[in-house]
């Protein structure tokens, strides 16, 4: 059972890795690469978990704490890369501490302050990432908000582990929820960027339609005799008028009527 839950954690964080990496490849937005690294580190954490299932190693072993700290660091780095001029490091640190103290302090009895700080740091890295993603107005509203909600919920889930009291009993539920939320983030970012492209294509197509009707859509005066066209004060040759405003090329020929008349 534990193995299966760890594997679904691996599957879902790998899905995050793949999504972020793919979107970075498409758009070269640096924060996506940093978040991809964070997801990759977290996949390694699940592999580590799978390799040590039943070996009696504590989940709070040094390797796991190390990977989690690296993951949180890359999430924060992504947040800094995404925001302009960058969320200051102080906000990240103070936020982590505040979140830890405000949420955990009254409830925690047995968990050590160090572990609480650690969970607060992890939670804040997720919540802050969700906030900067959800507040990015260049992304479609509904998709970015759902994705941000998954980020925030995943952050709160980190806090739920020490709050649960009986971690062993909470772990299966927590792991299944974490896997679901990680899948939610992976597919949420994909849908967000998919929707953005779909909407941009629609917008550009509308502009095209307007451009087509507007290219020559003035009311122009044309001379009844020589066909010159009034352009402000000046009168311009019809040929020049058309070639200046469009990509049409004009050559002179004689139409059948004029040919007959000229004979």
């Amino acid at each position, binding site marked *: 059972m534990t193995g299966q839950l760890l594997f679904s954690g691996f*599957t879902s964080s790998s899905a995050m890795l793949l999504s972020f990496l793919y979107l970075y490849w498409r758009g070269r937005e640096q924060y996506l690469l940093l978040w991809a690294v964070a997801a990759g580190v977290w996949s390694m954490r699940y592999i580590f978990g799978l390799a040590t299932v039943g070996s009696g190693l504590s989940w709070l072993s040094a390797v796991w704490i190390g990977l989690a700290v690296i993951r949180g660091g890359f999430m924060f780095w992504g947040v800094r890369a995404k925001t302009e001029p960058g969320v200051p490091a102080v906000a990240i640190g103070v936020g982590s501490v505040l979140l830890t103290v405000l949420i955990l302090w009254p409830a925690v009895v047995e968990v050590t302050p160090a572990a609480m700080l650690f969970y607060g740091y992890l939670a804040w890295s997720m919540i802050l990432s969700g906030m900067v993603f959800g507040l990015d107005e260049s992304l479609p509203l509904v998709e970015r908000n759902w994705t941000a909600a998954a980020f925030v919920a995943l952050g709160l889930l980190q806090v739920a582990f020490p709050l649960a009291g009986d971690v062993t009993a909470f772990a299966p539920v927590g792991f299944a929820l974490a896997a679901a939320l990680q899948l939610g983030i992976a597919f949420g970012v994909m849908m967000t960027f*998919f929707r953005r492209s779909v909407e941009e294509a629609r917008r550009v197509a509308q502009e095209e339609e307007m451009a087509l009707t507007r290219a020559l859509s003035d009311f122009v005066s044309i001379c009844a005799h020589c066909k010159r066209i009034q352009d402000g004060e000046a*009168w311009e040759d019809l040929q020049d008028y058309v070639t200046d405003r469009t990509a*049409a090329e004009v050559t002179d020929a004689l139409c059948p009527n004029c040919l007959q008349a000229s004979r």
Partner: protein
Amino acid sequence: MNLNLSLLPNLGSALVVCATFLYVWRISGERHLAIWFLASVVWVVRYSYTILQPALFPDDPFWVIPVLALARGALFLWGGTTMVGERIPTLFWIGVLAAVMWLFASGLPPDDPFSAFPGYVVFGLGLTWVALRIGRHPAFPSFERALAAWPMAIYGLIQLTFPWSTTVLRPIAPTTYLVASLTQIGFILGILMVYLRSAERDVGDAHVRLARALTRALSGHLDMCARCSEVRGASGEWERVETYVSRRSGTSFSHSICPTCLEAHYPGVNRRRRA
């Protein structure tokens, strides 16, 4: 309550597949996505059934899982053939018929690996067929379609092991379920990437068309009569330039006399009276 919770991750990934097909279908409106959505609903039903079965269906009727697998396979294949514009191969229907007949006629107990085997074969080969079609679809970008096709093909081939892996080879059953969930996620992520990439291509195309529209409302080569300024249209007829231009753009013309012609043709008329 006695539940078979070991399949929760599979239910989760099936729900993700379901939601994704529904979402992409709502945006792109392509029919095969709606059919695949229905197939993934059957998928969700199948896993929900297995999870709830110990509590709600203690007899576990032998036909439920194979029939759900066949229904899912048929829907999935239908979606695949709709996508590439083909008919479902007749061989598939013969296979379905044979599998159902075998299921009910063999009288084998449900835990016998041979009871549901033909159904899984038909389902698995149907999935693999769809994977091959996606993997070679000329309209799909090659990287993304490979990412969708490979997990789908593996998922299809895993179906061939199922009657044995869940009955005879019990120790490997969890592994096959896990690989099944991993490949489902991989497949649907690949499909999402195919659609994301084609949306990006649409954006590129739209920008190209916009640029063309901005410079080329009237494009190409115009033959214009040097005397009367009539213009030759595409079908060879000559028409007044006013008609020609106003039909192709939003321009409307009004006739007046320009100063040069006023001088040349109406020398007595006051210049200021030109409109």
